């Protein structure tokens, strides 16, 4: 009886998703690298530790995903970053952000330090100047963040769409199987004829 209860409770326990495919992506987000981690059935990996490795295999740092499966990592060297996460039961995610993209992110970060001088110069000398130039750094940050938030669901939808198995690939696969076994038939028939 005890065993039965144990088994039932184990079945009912929320098991981590055992879907087949892991979705992982990284993209630049301001001066950080943002990434997402989840499964192709739409479950996101929550509280999953992500380990970041450099090109030489040395560990650069670690980060943890939030409740939407997103994680942030601020790079401190312009080398290729490899993000890996072991989600257990054979699910391993591995994404690489190439060195030039990381450098670009860090370039953005560097610009932010110098930017205030030029921006305040423009706004001081030309109060009646164009509105474009009067955007402060904070405003730019806010806009960038808003845009990122807006496109996030789109990004997720595209990722999910990429994983979708449509009728065409199913029928295509069956077509291959028919063809392959037809070929097998041909070979077997030839063998029989020769014998």
């Amino acid at each position, binding site marked *: 009886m005890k065993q039965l209860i144990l088994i039932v409770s184990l*079945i009912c326990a929320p*098991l981590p*998703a055992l879907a087949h495919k892991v979705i992982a992506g990284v993209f630049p987000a301001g001066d950080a690298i943002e990434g997402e981690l989840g499964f192709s059935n739409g479950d996101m990996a929550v509280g999953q530790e992500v380990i970041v490795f450099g090109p030489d295999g040395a560990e650069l740092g670690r980060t943890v995903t939030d409740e939407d499966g997103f994680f942030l990592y601020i790079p401190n060297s312009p080398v290729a970053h490899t993000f890996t996460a072991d989600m257990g039961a054979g699910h*391993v995610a591995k994404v690489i952000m190439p060195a030039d993209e990381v450098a670009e992110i860090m370039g953005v970060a560097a610009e932010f330090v110098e930017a205030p001088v030029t921006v305040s110069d423009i706004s001081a000398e030309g109060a009646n100047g164009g509105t474009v130039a009067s955007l402060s750094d904070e405003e730019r940050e806010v806009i960038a963040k808003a845009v990122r938030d807006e496109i996030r669901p789109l990004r997720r939808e595209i990722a999910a769409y990429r994983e979708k198995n449509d009728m065409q*690939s199913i029928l295509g696969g*069956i077509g291959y199987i028919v063809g392959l076994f037809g070929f097998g038939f041909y070979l*077997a028939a030839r063998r029989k004829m020769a014998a």
Partner: protein
Amino acid sequence: MHIVDGALSNPVVIGGAIAAAGGIAVGLKSLDIDRIPTAGVLSASFFVASLIHVPIGPSSVHLILNGLAGLLLGWAAFPALFVGLLLQAVFFGFGGLTVLGVNTFNIAMPAVLAWMIFGRLIGRGSAVHGAIWGGLGGAFAIAATTLFVAVSLALTGDEFLPAAKLVFFAHIPVMVVEAVLTGFAVLLARKVKPELFLKGSSA
């Protein structure tokens, strides 16, 4: 059930590939002209079955149908399931090409084992008897596959028991569904084409 690229260490991947190649060779030898259509149909069913998901709690697992393939094909299940797995990897991204060997072995070997244990029993007695043994064979193949997957993961470094438990319990619903499906498939085949199994058990 499909192990993905990069989850296993190289020795496991290479070992799996060699074992799968051996199984495929034996299977191709046993695959005579009369059984090619059976193999093709089962390969296609296996390919599509993985798209049928059984929801359990927050997650889902899919049908495998390797027990049925094994019971009908014997060693020929190896090439049939290999073709299915290869196409799943290419079309759906299930598993991956480097771990194809391991996945083939993990899925096809239990199928062959099910055939060795239950193959003879199915051809004997009444059709209903055969169907019950068939159902047991179907469930057995899934259970053995979960065990094989857990062993592959354990050889790479995962703790064996937690991994095995996780995969095994997650697949209990699949075992039940497959047992019923395989049982009925055997029942139908025993009624309409009894020689299928008589031949299978003597092969």
